[in-house]
Structures are given as structure tokens and as C-alpha cells.
């Protein structure tokens, strides 16, 4: 809705809108990224995969999602 106050995070260096605090797993799903292939940093700290389910992404967070590239 236009009159709602947009919440946003910084995702890989760019602003990314989030309408509310969001579970990391939900964000990954929305981005169509698979947890087994990615690394996630929130505010410059690596998030261990065991904590993905309990981790929330909040307004103002700096989120870096890195997809593993394993070919050559």
C-alpha cells in the first residue's frame, strides 16, 4: 500500500524493500535462493546455517547473500 511506511534493508549493496521484519528463510525463498548453496552475512557477521531458521532480517540490516559458484 502506498501509505504504508516502507521498511528496507540493504541487500548486496542495494536498497531492498521489506514490509516487515522477515525470517531469513522466507527472504531466501522470496529471492528464489536455496539455503544449501548460499552464504548469508547480516551486518558483516556470517550467519551459521544452523541458525537460519531462527534468524530475522530487520529494517536497516545490511544483508549479503552470496551464491556458491562451484564450476570451472
Amino acid at each position, binding site marked *: 500500500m502506498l501509505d504504508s511506511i516502507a521498511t528496507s534493508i540493504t541487500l548486496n549493496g542495494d536498497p531492498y524493500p521489506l514490509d516487515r521484519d522477515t525470517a531469513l528463510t522466507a527472504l531466501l525463498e522470496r529471492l528464489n535462493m536455496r539455503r544449501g548453496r548460499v552464504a548469508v552475512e547480516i551486518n*558483516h557477521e*556470517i550467519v*551459521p546455517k544452523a541458525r537460519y531458521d531462527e534468524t530475522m532480517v530487520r529494517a536497516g540490516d545490511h544483508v549479503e547473500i552470496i*551464491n556458491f*559458484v*562451484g564450476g570451472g
Partner: protein
Amino acid sequence: MALRLSTGGRSTTEVATERILIVGLGGLGVPALWALARAGAQRKRLTIVDPDPVELSNLARQVIYRSRDAGTPKVDAAARWLVERFPDVNVERHPIALEASNAARLVAAHDFVIDATDNPAAKFLINDACIAARTPFVYGGVVGMTGQAMTVIPGETACIRCVFETPPDDNENQSCREAGIVGPVAGAIGEMQAAEAMRAWRAQRPLLSGKILTYDASGPARVRIAAVSPRPGCGCGAWKPESRDARSRREPQSPGN
């Protein structure tokens, strides 16, 4: 000769950078090898490892091979090419796959490793062998229009397991076959890997130490370099409780970085 590798101005690590191991002589390894040769690697000792023969389908992006090399082990074709152009090059050939049984011995005999392999399992194997031997290495990967690179200084900067923990469960070879490998993207990453090795042998800190570079030439193209911190609980030994405290203290002064 042992050189001093500067590690951020606070401390130094004794690193000899005379013997360089290139694992894989495909889309990444060929440009890395060529770049090192042009950069004067003939005065270094290079070791090349790859179990595969040259195939005709390789020629478009693995530019040192010719059609007459088809069927020849890549290490032999590459060594012949190298010696023709750089007669005093010192190159050791291993027409084998890097495996758990030989990785430790091979890595320990070298001072810097270029991971130019084509599958996640090999990349994690190189990571683990280099961590155990405390040998710095540069990881590289490429699929389709996307490439990636990161240099690991064992015990100091984040390793592949700090960042990704375990190899992805799906089959990367399958995705490579589907997405292909785009020559210029592989070339860009392979050349960067060579540049990282050159910095190490000049006793300079490799630029991608503790930083992961993603070069995505698809869609909304972008180059992204993300600093990655060691992960508590990773067995590589790079995470130190005091480094976390230091980061926490710094953070208020550097928001947004």
C-alpha cells in the same frame, strides 16, 4: 626463498611463494597458467594437475590447446605449450585427479595454490588440505555468466567452510553442462587468480584475502566484493574471539560498510 607476506600491516606471516600449484587446467586453469607464464613465472616452479585429456569442445575457451592436442593429457599439452614459449620454465606435471589420498602431499609441497577445479567437492578438498598445510590459496569458480574468487590465508582469513560450510548437495557438473562456461568470464576469474598468486610471490597481501568477489555478467550485471569474516565454530582456526570484539568496537564508526 622465503618471502615475508604482509598481513594488513599489523603482523607478517612467513610465506615462501616460489612453488605454485594449479589444480585444474580447464576454463580457469588455462588463463591462470598463461597469465603466470607471461608474468615471469618461468623463474618459479609451477605444478599442474589435471586428470583429463584435451577434448575438441575445450578449444574455444581453453585457448592454449589446439585440435592436434585432442586426446592428449591436458598437463602434457599445456607443458608443451609452455616450454615452446618460455623455454626456461620449470613445470611439473601430474595427470591425476586431486583426491583425499594425494591432496595433503601435493599441497604441502607448494607455497600457493590456485583452485581451478570444476566441481564443489574438489574445491572443499583443496580448502581443507590448504588449511591443514597452512598454505594460502585462491578459490575460483565459474558457471554460465557468473564467476567467483576468494583468497584464503589459513588461520587468518575466512575459509570456504567459514562461508559456505559444506559443498552444495546438487551436482555442479550438471549445472555447468546446462549453463555452460562462458570463456571471457572464466578468463577474467582465472587471470585474477593468477594476479593473486603474483601478489603472494611478491610478498604482497593478495587483494581478495578475506573478500569474495562475484562477477555476474548476466541480467543486471554486477561486480560485487564482499568482505567475509571467519565463522565461529569453523575448524579452520581463523576466528578469534578478540577479532569479534574489535569489529564490534569499529562498527559504530563505519556504518554501511
